[in-house]
């Protein structure tokens, strides 16, 4: 079973590597959205410092939406999703492997870029660890939620419009706690509470959301 999962992971990562341009899009989007805020509001360091956690988190949330539509689309269109659903491997595990690939290719680049953008927004260096940790936890939850949305809309023609409407309301707690942790660390407060809550959300998501993804995939395959 673990061999099958790792084979899936390797396959998906190889496929992602072949489409490097597409994979880089969320990261580019993340940078561009973040740049818009100093340009649109005002480049004052005090202002930027106070809005940095919220800006970075909102931008990460929006950038995460970009890859979500294609999360299952290719496999659905060429029929391999159907084969994966019929395979002896539980669909929940297949879904989890796919979420892991999605996170590695879109979530992780955002987490790596965040300190750089944080510096540009005058976010304090000593709080950077918390920012990265909060994004590390948060982007994984977002990948899980995004997979539910993608699985629910994969069979639809206008899924690109619908997906953000479905996923963003569900992502609100992640945004609240993530931005809260980053802001508390920037103010020199202890961010442990918010981080623990995010970890709890991630644990809950890892245990329950694969079942929702599998159910949603089955609905989409039936239609």
């Amino acid at each position: 079973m673990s061999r099958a999962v790792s084979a899936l992971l390797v396959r998906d990562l190889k496929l992602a590597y072949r489409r490097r341009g597409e994979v880089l899009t969320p990261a580019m989007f993340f940078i561009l959205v973040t740049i818009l805020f100093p340009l649109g509001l005002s480049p004052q360091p005090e202002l930027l410092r106070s809005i940095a956690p919220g800006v970075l988190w909102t931008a990460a949330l929006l950038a995460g939406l970009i890859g979500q539509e294609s999360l299952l689309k290719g496999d659905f269109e060429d029929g391999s999703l159907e084969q994966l659903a019929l395979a002896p491997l539980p669909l929940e595990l297949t879904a989890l492997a796919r979420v892991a690939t999605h996170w590695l290719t879109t979530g992780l680049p955002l987490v790596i870029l965040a300190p750089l953008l944080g510096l540009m927004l005058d976010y304090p260096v000593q709080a950077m660890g918390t920012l990265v940790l909060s994004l590390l936890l948060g982007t994984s939850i977002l990948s899980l939620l995004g997979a539910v949305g993608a699985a629910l809309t994969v069979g639809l023609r206008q899924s690109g419009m619908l997906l953000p409407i479905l996923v963003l309301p569900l992502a609100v707690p992640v945004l609240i706690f993530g931005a809260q942790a980053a802001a508390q660390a920037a103010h020199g407060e202890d961010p442990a509470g918010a981080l623990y809550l995010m970890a709890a959300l991630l644990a809950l998501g890892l245990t329950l959301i694969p079942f929702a993804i599998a159910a949603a995939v089955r609905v989409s395959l039936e239609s």
Partner: protein
Amino acid sequence: MAALNNKYGWAWFHRFASPPYLYRVAGFLIPWFAWPAAVLIAAGLYGGLWSSPPDYQQGDGFRIIYIHVPSAYLSMMGYAILAVASAVGLVWRMKLAHAVAAAAAPLGASFTFLALVTGALWGKPMWGTYWVWDARLTSELILLFLYFGFIALQRAYEDSRSGDRAAAVLALVGVVNLPIIHYSVVWWNSLHQGATVFVGRGSDIAPGMLWPLLCMIFGFTLLFAACLARSVQAEVLERERGAAWAAEVA
């Protein structure tokens, strides 16, 4: 199987899987919900708008509570009904449970909207602003978008059976979100200060103001039930529009 069901008393539940039966039951229940609702709301309005004294702090402005609190409570209740109906539809493959969920979603969204509007109208004279980024207000707005997402997803599918089941999965994922959003009142305020509103005022309310409020809450609940029964009827008719019995009753 049928004998087994009867032995354990579950036959009554299975009968709800029959569209004409559900249609008849809903039609039978409507007057039993609607008339007590009318009486309770009339009593509540009389008590709330005439007989109870103005609040010592808020003057007459507090009277909007008689609409606001019941609709806010029903906005949550509506989502609970939506989620339970969705779960029943997914687990037992009961098609009519999806019809109940489809009927509950626009109703719940309407009450959420009503709660938001009355809250804003109440906020202006009391806090000097229509909108505050308080956790309670924001979570209510998010709830509205959860309803919209459910309705949009259900209607996006050409095949209504797939739409039902997809939206049901979404409703169940969203229900995990509800308590989190709800408790963010506690968690979020550590950052955003100065918005400790609405919560926990209920028990301190004077008896003269309390009984109209309770009347309104029960009256609104029954009104919701009556509206739900009616829209379940409409939903069932629409889904069964090809059937002979539907042509007879319509």
